[in-house]
């Protein structure tokens, strides 16, 4: 018997939704307060890890939209980040450009590369598309390497900390809040995009391209749009990486980095924006967690080389475990936990 039929003493669906929305808002406010206050009790090391997570989060959001939402496979994510980092590094080194020029230029460079490398997606799917995006990675890395070699920057391009409104962003606290704001802004932008006509079109073509086309979705345009927008965001995160770490080098953008980003969206949960962020947190923290675990257990902590190798192996093992036992990722676990702790009436409402 539905709540509407029983009426008195039960909440109507409308009030339930209002309450749930209110709970969501409370949860978000709580999270924001926690994140804003976190630096007050964090060491510089913790702030550094948080900042790394925020940069990874921006990159993971881009890949989640492209792969998890629009269904376009990419192995060129690291190359796109490199494109952003090198655009920033080269403009800084050659023209002394400031952050207000380098960041937009990096986004534009990424978007243009995304447009070019999105073109194969109009004819290719699955593993074939993955291979064409892999070519993007190698091309960008090759060009970056050529620049480093030709300019004599064999160790990499060094950047000074960016200056924004006369304020130098170098301190860990400053970076924390800047990157927190940027990842929040990127999340908000992606969320709005997914709630728009564009987002619905991406979901439709992810589900079934032929059906989407039959429904009037211009598949080619929306595929290219997905590549352009997400490549711009990925490139943006690469530029932030360059500024945050104060250097650019091809050796920082390996193919393994692309794999790590794919791991983030798989572990986080395909198709979920919060999942991208959870995946970024998880993948960034795993090596530190394993290190901590090894140090905490004296016997295991005997040999530092073994400790470190274990950390490396743990990453691969976790990927396999998630793929086999939890394909919906951390988001799936979270939903199940919420379902477990929710009241029976709420559980009935849970889809």
């Amino acid at each position, binding site marked *: 018997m539905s709540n509407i039929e029983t009426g008195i003493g039960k909440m109507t669906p409308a009030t339930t939704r209002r309450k749930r929305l209110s709970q969501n808002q409370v949860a978000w406010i709580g999270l924001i307060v926690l994140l804003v206050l976190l630096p007050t009790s964090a*060491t*510089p*090391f913790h702030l*550094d*890890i948080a900042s*790394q997570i925020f940069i990874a989060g921006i990159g993971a959001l881009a890949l989640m939209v492209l792969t998890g939402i629009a269904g376009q496979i990419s192995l060129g994510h690291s190359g796109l980040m490199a494109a952003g980092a090198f655009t920033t590094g080269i403009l800084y080194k050659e023209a002394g450009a400031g952050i207000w020029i380098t960041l937009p230029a990096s986004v534009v460079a990424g978007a243009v590369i995304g447009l070019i490398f999105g073109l194969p997606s109009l004819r290719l799917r699955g593993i074939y598309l993955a291979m064409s995006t892999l070519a993007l990675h*190698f091309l960008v890395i*090759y060009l970056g*390497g050529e620049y*480093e*070699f030709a300019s*004599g*920057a*064999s*160790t*990499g*391009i*060094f950047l000074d900390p960016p200056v924004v409104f006369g304020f130098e962003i*170098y301190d*860990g606290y400053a970076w924390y809040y800047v990157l927190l704001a940027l990842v929040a802004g990127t999340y908000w932008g992606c969320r709005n995009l997914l709630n728009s006509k564009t987002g619905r079109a991406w979901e439709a073509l992810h589900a079934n391209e032929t059906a989407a086309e039959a429904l009037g979705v211009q598949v080619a345009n929306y595929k290219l749009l997905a590549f352009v927008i997400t490549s711009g965001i990925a490139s943006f995160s690469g530029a932030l*990486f360059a500024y945050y*770490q*104060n*250097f*650019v*080098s*091809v*050796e*920082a953008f*390996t*193919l393994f980095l692309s794999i790590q980003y794919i791991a983030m969206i798989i572990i986080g949960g395909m198709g979920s924006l919060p999942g991208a962020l959870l995946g970024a947190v998880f993948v960034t923290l795993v*090596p530190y967690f394993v*290190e901590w675990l090894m140090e905490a257990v*004296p016997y295991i*902590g*005997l*040999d*530092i*080389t073994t*400790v*470190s*190798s274990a*950390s*490396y192996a743990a990453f691969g093992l976790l990927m396999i475990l998630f793929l086999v036992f939890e394909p919906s990722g951390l988001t799936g676990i979270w939903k199940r936990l919420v379902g477990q702790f929710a009241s029976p009436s709420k559980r009935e409402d849970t889809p």
Partner: protein
Amino acid sequence: MKIIQFAKSLVLSATVAAGPALAADDEVVIGVSAALSGSAAGTYAAPAEGLKLYLHLLNEAGGVNGKTVSLVIYDDQGDASRAASNAKRFLTQDDVQMIISVSTSATFAPIISQATRGKVPVLFAGSVCPAETMPPAKPLLYCSTGFSAVHDSIAMVDYLRDRESSDATVGFSAMGIPISRAGMEEAERLVLKADMKSAGVEIAPPGTADYTSFATKLIQNGADSVLSWAPWAVQIRFVDALRKQGWKGNAYVGHLAEAELEMMKMKDPNLFTLGTNVMLFEDSEATQTLVNAVKESGSNLHPESILDGWVGGIVVEGVLEQLGEDTSAEAINAVMSNIEIDTKGLRGGPIKWTDDNHFRETIYYRAYRWSDEKSAMEIARDWKAYEVE
């Protein structure tokens, strides 16, 4: 036996890797960022252990002038982001007075960037020497490692000219990373300058599994001999690919940590290594000290693989010997910028740093190869000194 090794390791961990928690006024805290895991660990984990072992023995012997060393070791997996994080941790959390890098060139930029900002000296001991340590050297950056892309290339071309005919065609193989390419491009330039011919520089991207196509191209271009400067595995896979196609020319490769053991397995008399470290088959007092120390530590590592880290330990000892009461990073840097360190027979001569040369004023190279007659490794050419300009 395992229990004894376990106990020894515990003692070693407690005395050397204790970290800043035990740091006192008479302790110098040194941060070590090393590729202890990941694809580069085969080359860098052992030198890191060598550094740790040398400094453990130094501490056990009472340190230098009452000063002991506390090492804080973090793994960077040869990854730039991890190295950046480690460097920040050293400076903001561990308050180190010196940083030592035993890792890939990918990690140099973040470490240099952070250390320069924090005004803490960096010693590359086991990592390839970055260009920033060469004259005119950048402040705070020093290198004691036995190999350097450009200088190794100079020595290799010089030795090649001694052995090959003056009209020989020389092929070059590099890995697609800037430092390896820089070495081989320089070698090609020197070969052409000597009126020899070049079969081209073949650059294999990182992660290449099969070097056949690169080797084929050099053979097709008529290479009589081949020079290679890259991570050891890349150099040797390249030589393997050449030999599998029946190529019988001389191959000259950089002498890295794995060289002695691998060459003894390969038994290839036409494969030469040029390097600045001794091989341990020589059985001198210096090599015996090292071999015995490794044995007594219970480590499973091969002594030759730890040599560059061991020399790094000798450098730290040399710096401490000259350090006064002030053990700040600034004071350590002042000592390092003008010092001569005796390498105790493990190299051809001392390591001497000056204000604008943080690599070494004179570098000594020796060539080794496998001898079929002796069925053992042999010195193909003894130490030759090169001035570093």
